[in-house]
């Protein structure tokens, strides 16, 4: 899991994808996921995956790193795909493509949009306890991650984490987890006290202003809409788009994003 790295990318980037407005990026991501759900033809899904990777590159993110992050939770998809090997090779490939494309699209969204902005947008339709819980969780995660990193570092320096000594390592990690839970519990009490002093009355404020819709929003949103339309048409008619049309679409999109990437640098 690379939440810290993704958060850094979101906060430090200045690409055309970073400058696009939150609603347009959320809409485009929803379109990609909808395409993943209804799309069942291999060329369409390959083209969609390539489109997301082109967008990742346009965002100035390391493409290989994003691909690796998207592969990590793919174990379920891999097992699911292997269980479908009886129906030929195409189905397992489609299953893996669907899982990796959806994961990459979500990583792209979070890597180009600060968490507060996303939460401010999607939090409007959530109960307050959930919205505030999400906000507190995200904030707390980085505090606890630092504590955990320090603990593991100390453990390694003192010989508590040795290669091949699985039981020994697990016991030490267990103690560390116990200590972290106690720490987290104490911190939550202290956090509430500090927030109360600062006037917390059960409502955490979030971002409600977004960048205005601009030309930066258009390329990703439009191409995602085209893919969704193509998938819907293919589902209705049972006819899949030609390879050449996908190739032209991707080529045009890649060129446009490359120009924007260099221009907006």
């Amino acid at each position, binding site marked *: 899991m690379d939440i810290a790295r993704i958060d850094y990318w979101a906060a430090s980037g200045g690409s055309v994808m970073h400058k696009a407005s939150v609603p347009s990026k959320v809409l485009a991501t929803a379109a990609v996921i909808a395409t993943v759900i209804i799309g069942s033809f291999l060329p369409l899904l390959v083209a969609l995956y390539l489109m997301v990777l082109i967008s990742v590159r346009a965002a100035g993110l390391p493409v290989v790193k994003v691909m690796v992050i998207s592969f990590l939770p793919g174990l379920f998809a891999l097992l699911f795909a292997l269980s479908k090997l009886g129906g030929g090779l195409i189905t397992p490939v489609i299953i893996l493509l*669907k899982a990796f494309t959806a994961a990459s699209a979500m990583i792209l969204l979070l890597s180009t949009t600060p968490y507060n902005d996303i939460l401010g947008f999607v939090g409007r339709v959530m109960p307050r*306890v959930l919205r505030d819980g999400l906000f*507190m969780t995200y904030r707390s995660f980085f505090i606890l991650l630092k504590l955990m990193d320090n603990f593991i570092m100390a453990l390694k320096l003192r010989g508590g984490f040795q290669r091949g000594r699985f039981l020994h390592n697990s016991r030490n990690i267990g103690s560390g987890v116990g200590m972290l*839970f106690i720490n987290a519990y104490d*911190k939550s009490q202290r956090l509430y006290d500090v927030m109360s002093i600062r006037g917390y009355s059960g409502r955490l404020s979030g971002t409600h202003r977004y960048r205005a819709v601009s030309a930066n929003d258009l390329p990703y949103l439009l191409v995602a809409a085209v893919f969704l339309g193509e998938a819907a048409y293919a589902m209705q008619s049972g006819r899949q788009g030609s390879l050449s049309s996908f190739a032209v679409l991707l080529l045009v999109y890649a060129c446009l994003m490359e120009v924007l990437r260099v221009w907006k640098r």
Partner: protein
Amino acid sequence: MSHLHIPDGLLPVWLWVVGLVAASVAVGFSLFMLRNVDLRKKIPLLGMMSAMMLVGMSIEVVPYHLNLSVITGIILGPWLAIVAALIVNLLLALIGHGGVTVVGLNTLVIGFEGVMGYILFSVFRKALRPGLSAAASTFLTLFMSTCLMLLIVFIANIDLNIASAGELREVMESSPAGFAKHITYSGGGFNFRFFAIASLAMGLVGWTIEAFVTAVAVGFIDKVKPDIIGKRS
């Protein structure tokens, strides 16, 4: 591997829609049960404990990552554990670790771990030491949650042979045997037996690791600050 994060696009639409509805009902019911609790005070704790689950998922013990859903359930209690499960799954979905559309189903699986972990720990604790109770409740809970996940996958590959609304009415009114006639298990060549054996085999390793780590952690908490695992919301 105690549970698997189901990605987008693999399960039929009706199943993840049912999952979303069921998870909404579960979270709504949890909030209803918490109506007499001052949630203002619980939000920081909820945030910290949900973050602990995420930190646990960042710790790799061999190629397996921890979930800490059972110990979170023990500390938070069953109702807040369900809310924490939804929060964790929403955050995981945002980083592509489990699908957005299947947040409901994943929440039901992890929420189940929190609730069942809490219940089993409460039962075992009457007879066993906290560490042992935690180990037994974690192992059993994770076994059951894996079975729940397998049930979801099994249902996903069932085809209902219902062509019309009239036939649906007929099926609804028929006996179980009549209903069974309308079910075929195709799944487009899906080998459920392979999937189940692989999941359970990997699960066995995961449940053991998680049970051991949870037992040590709960034993540690019991020595240093026992009120944490004694408090109930």
